[in-house]
């Protein structure tokens, strides 16, 4: 049998497995508006604190980025942990390991697009912010989803368990989204290397400046490429830390 129908079957199975989990659907629908609302509540008092200099709309941007990152990360994590054992059987049944891995990555990317779409619509509808270039703003969230979906894949391969992986993921996404909007009062450049730093810059530019930097796009794609390589290595060699 040709590769394409097998990939379709494997990707379709991965997407069905994700979307038929009621908790995942509930999170997709409820998390983005809830997070954006909570960020507005939390960030406004913080912005009044001395030493903190936030741009207007920072709470909305931070909320959208966190919701995208967390949901996409969960997706990558669940995809790797939830199917690991059954994927081995799929390999015994004739799939090449690379085919299975590709199917998992494609599933994560497609579902990551869905996550970015939902958060983008929520961001546009639920906030007062109107992006100057909506398509680029969506692209920025798509970049954040792509990067964090792959972070989830890496965490899933490292921990091999959903609970431990989710805890690390929520901690990382929290620090990262707050750091990207400038809530963390530090002069250190380390936050510039966090996964959401560049997607935030892209989103900010798209919303307020109506511009997009080729360098930012390349940085996001490079970041995702590096994470994809790391994810493949971790999945292939295992790395169960628990």
């Amino acid at each position, binding site marked *: 049998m040709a590769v394409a129908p097998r990939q379709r079957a494997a990707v379709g199975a991965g997407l*069905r497995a994700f979307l038929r989990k009621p908790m995942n659907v509930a999170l997709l629908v409820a998390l983005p508006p809830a997070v954006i609302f909570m960020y507005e509540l939390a960030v406004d008092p913080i912005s009044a604190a001395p030493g903190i200099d936030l741009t207007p709309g920072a709470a909305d941007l931070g909320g959208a980025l966190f919701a995208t990152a967390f949901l996409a990360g969960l997706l990558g994590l669940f995809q790797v942990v939830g199917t690991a*054992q059954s994927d081995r059987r799929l*390999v015994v049944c*004739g799939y090449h390991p690379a085919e299975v891995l590709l199917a998992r990555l494609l599933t994560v990317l497609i579902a990551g697009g869905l996550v970015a779409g939902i958060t983008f619509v929520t961001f546009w509808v639920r906030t007062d912010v109107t992006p100057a270039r909506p398509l680029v703003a969506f692209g920025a969230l798509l970049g954040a989803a792509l990067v964090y979906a792959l972070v989830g894949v890496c965490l899933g391969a490292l921990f091999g368990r959903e609970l431990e992986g989710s805890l690390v993921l929520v901690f990382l996404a929290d620090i990262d989204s707050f750091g990207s909007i400038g809530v963390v009062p530090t002069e250190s450049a380390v936050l510039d290397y966090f996964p959401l730093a560049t997607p935030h810059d892209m989103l900010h530019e798209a919303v307020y400046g109506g511009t997009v930097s080729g360098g930012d796009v390349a940085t996001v794609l490079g970041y995702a490429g590096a994470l994809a390589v790391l994810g493949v290595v971790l999945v292939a060699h295992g790395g169960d830390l628990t």
Partner: protein
Amino acid sequence: MPNLENKSVPDNDQTTTSEWVIRGTDIEKTYDSWLPFGRTVEVLTEATLTINESELVGIVGGNGSGKSTLMKILVGVLERDGGEVERRGTIGWCPQETLLYDRLTVRETMQLFGSGYGLDSATIRERQAWLADRFEYEEYLDTRVDHLSGGNQQKVNLSVALLHQPDVLLLDEPYTGFDWETYQTFWEFTDELAAQGTAIVVISHFVEEHDRFDRIYELQDGSLERQNVADSEEVS
């Protein structure tokens, strides 16, 4: 505890002239941990066996004796530390745990694994209908795996291994959860397959009907000892 006493016979006592389909020689496996104070468990030391076509072979052993480890190594999903494994022909593997995608329906499951075997959709549908009829789960074809009873999940688990009519079947506790009727169907089916040339290995913590098997091995202290089937029958 296996219901066999230690009545080993030499493995070169095989009189069959048929072709081997799986050969394992001096298989070794130790579970180790890289963490400090982790336990090291030596599971297989020098397990050796040969499975020929048309044979029905049983492997018994107590809990934790390494039966599933041996089967995973024979199938190729687990790396061995030492020894050799050679395989010929296609393999059907029914693992002890139902390794299926919980949220897929039975029909989707068959389509997915069937595509792995290289079967076209029409052949998958035909084989799936035949297996569902044989093991009596036709009404559950559009039911999600996680909504099936344990026994029906096991039927699907077994059916996935049988879908492509493999040359050798490796079955790890295959009849767990089966009712009596399905249990009988299972044995009728394995007899038919063996008569058609399929080699079948059944792993179980105990074997009740020894006369069904051509050979029975007991896994003890990491190695396999062949049991005399006639003697085993007297024991049971």
